[in-house]
């Protein structure tokens, strides 16, 4: 029957395809690497050098768009189909660690020459320590600083960028007075969580209490930051709009309709290409309640999966990508900032005046709570922030709702921790 003959022809084809792409020979090892976004594209350019230095190891890079990355990773872990090495946004590290999917890299670091913990920015390194164990090596850092128009700021009476909240608010008020009623000096998209979270954490407050069991949002410290955030909207200094409602922030910035945004290192490249050269712009660390403030320790790490069959080869790749020269090359290709101090001393970065603010900020960064629910929790923060900013709720109501929702999110974690503690 035709069906049968077709099947007889097709199954071997499938078998061949299934086997294709695996290890070519017995002594050659293929390390599978999952990269996301632009970094996934760029890593393929660094790979030939690694393969040259490590004959016998081939690297196969798979690119995954950020929009699908989270589900692809979790599905792969659950399905037992993980790669060897992956780039992991560091808010996901605790999640995969809770699944027991990541190898403990502590022992490997101790014996390693390439990876020197002391060289890394502490805030960044800490984002990879979950329950006392090291689950990833920081690959690049991302933190948020001010991008601003120094000329507009100077015209408002601030030749140097503000370093305290009071000065910041004063500068914004003055710029608003010069701009007019329907212009806003600072853009804080209401659907972005880094801004309210960073401001809330600048007072030293923790987002969670009780061993990561409950929300801590009504803590006076967090409340101060949250109130400051909301006040910027209430005073008309920031428009209550989401990121998608602003069609072209670079244009507004260039025209002087916008003087400040809080954003990350990739914008250095964007601003350089989209803002006309005659328009001055600069970066500065975030102002804090009483002096230079802290920002968020974000970024991505390199992790090795426990299900990998080539963990030693995978570690070699991680070491390679962690070398200062490779990190510098990586920076040149992507604009992502190195998480260790040595590459920063190179002229490429040391003399980059826009990156200088990031360098200063990186000494004052704080990690998010190391719980699997971290991403859900910070998304709730911006939702309540949006409500308060748009006047749909008071600060008290928003913070109470936030605690309620976060407690609900953490309910399972509480149950498990309590059960383990034998309470």
């Amino acid at each position, binding site marked *: 029957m035709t069906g049968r003959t077709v*099947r007889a022809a*097709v199954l071997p084809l499938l078998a061949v395809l299934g086997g294709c792409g695996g290890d070519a020979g017995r002594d050659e090892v293929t390390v*599978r690497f999952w990269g996301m976004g632009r970094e996934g594209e760029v890593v393929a350019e660094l790979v030939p050098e690694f393969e040259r230095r490590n004959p016998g190891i081939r690297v196969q890079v*798979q690119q*995954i*768009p950020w929009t699908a990355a989270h589900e692809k990773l979790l599905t*792969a872990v659950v*399905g*037992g*189909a993980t790669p060897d090495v992956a780039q992991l946004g560091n808010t996901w590290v605790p999640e995969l660690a809770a699944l027991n999917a990541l190898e403990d890299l502590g022992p490997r670091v101790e014996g390693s020459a390439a990876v020197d913990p002391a060289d890394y920015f502490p805030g960044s390194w800490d984002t990879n320590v979950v329950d006392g164990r090291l689950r990833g090596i920081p690959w690049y850092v991302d933190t948020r600083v001010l991008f601003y128009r120094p000329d507009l700021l100077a015209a408002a009476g601030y030749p140097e960028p503000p370093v305290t909240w009071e000065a910041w608010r004063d500068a914004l008020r003055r710029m608003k007075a010069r701009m007019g009623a329907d212009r806003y000096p600072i853009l804080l998209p209401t659907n972005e969580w880094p801004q309210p979270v960073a401001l809330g954490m600048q007072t030293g407050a923790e987002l969670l209490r009780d061993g990561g069991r409950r929300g801590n949002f009504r803590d006076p410290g967090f409340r101060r930051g949250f109130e400051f955030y909301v006040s910027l909207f209430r005073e008309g200094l920031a428009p209550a709009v989401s990121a998608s409602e602003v069609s072209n922030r670079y244009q507004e910035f260039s025209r002087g309709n916008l003087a400040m945004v809080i954003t990350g290192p990739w914008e250095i490249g964007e601003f350089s290409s989209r803002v006309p050269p005659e328009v001055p712009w600069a970066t500065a660390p975030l102002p804090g309640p009483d002096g230079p403030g802290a920002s968020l320790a974000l970024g991505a790490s390199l992790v090795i999966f426990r299900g990998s069959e080539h963990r030693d080869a995978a570690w070699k790749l991680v070491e390679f990508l962690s070398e200062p020269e490779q990190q510098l090359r990586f920076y040149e290709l992507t604009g992502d900032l190195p998480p260790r101090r040595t590459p920063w001393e190179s002229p490429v970065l040391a003399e980059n005046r826009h990156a200088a603010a990031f360098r200063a900020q990186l000494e004052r960064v704080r990690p998010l709570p190391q719980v699997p629910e971290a991403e859900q929790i910070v998304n709730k923060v911006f939702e309540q922030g949006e409500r308060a900013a748009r006047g749909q709720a008071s600060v008290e109501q928003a913070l109470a709702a936030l605690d309620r929702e976060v407690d609900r999110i953490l309910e399972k974690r509480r149950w498990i921790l309590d059960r383990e503690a034998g309470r």
Partner: protein
Amino acid sequence: MTGSRAVKALLYAQLAVGAVLALLPMVWMVSASLMPAGEASTFPPRLFPREVTFEHYVALFTRLHLGRYFLNSAGIALAVTSVSLLVNSMAGYAFAKLRFRGRDRTFRLLATGLVVPVQVAMLPLFLLMKQLGLVNTYWGVVIPGMASIFGIFLIRQYALSIPDDLLDAARMDGAGELRIFGSIVLPTIVPILATLAIWTFLSTWNDFMWPLIVLSDERRYTLPVALANLAGEHVQDTELMMAGSVLTILPVMLVFLFLQRYYVQGVMVGSVKG
């Protein structure tokens, strides 16, 4: 008569407008796929390329390994089609012509399955596949598609019309049921088998959600999944994405165009329920 001529003209005009609307997106798709990079994102938008280039097709096959995804899709679609033809036709015939205890009850139970959205099953099915070690494998994609309630219905509907005398005569001669199936039934239902084969091939080729969930290694991606993945990365490369879309649609379009007689007949038969 002018009245009827005017009516005819109106009808043809409506048909023509409808045809343009139906085909325009795909015409633009093909056209844009042949445009040099960036030309599809101009204002005013162009319907036809200024100069034709195949660079995107070349890029898809060389840089982006589309050939591999093509083979994956083809292999999976062929495997599912061939197995399901056999499996569904046997069951459909049994429901139509064999008398056995609980036939109608089982059939009704099967029918209820049609109302259940297939996505309800996907979560536990994934966990089941994990237990069987079939996650991220071709079999993980193939196996759930090997039998389909709709296919059984289609075969049964058609098989109902096989004359009983024919079958009884064979039984009188002492032929076993499987012999009867192979030598009498299958040749008789070849038209509906063709329809089912085309239908299964098309729906397996076009399937998206389940392969998306089951396959994590991109080397095993089917075309639709790979295309969606590319779309996430290459949002700006309009022309490249259009070429990818053309390549994804082309096989099913060809299968349909050459075999549409069977396919259309099947749709119309499928609407006859009993």
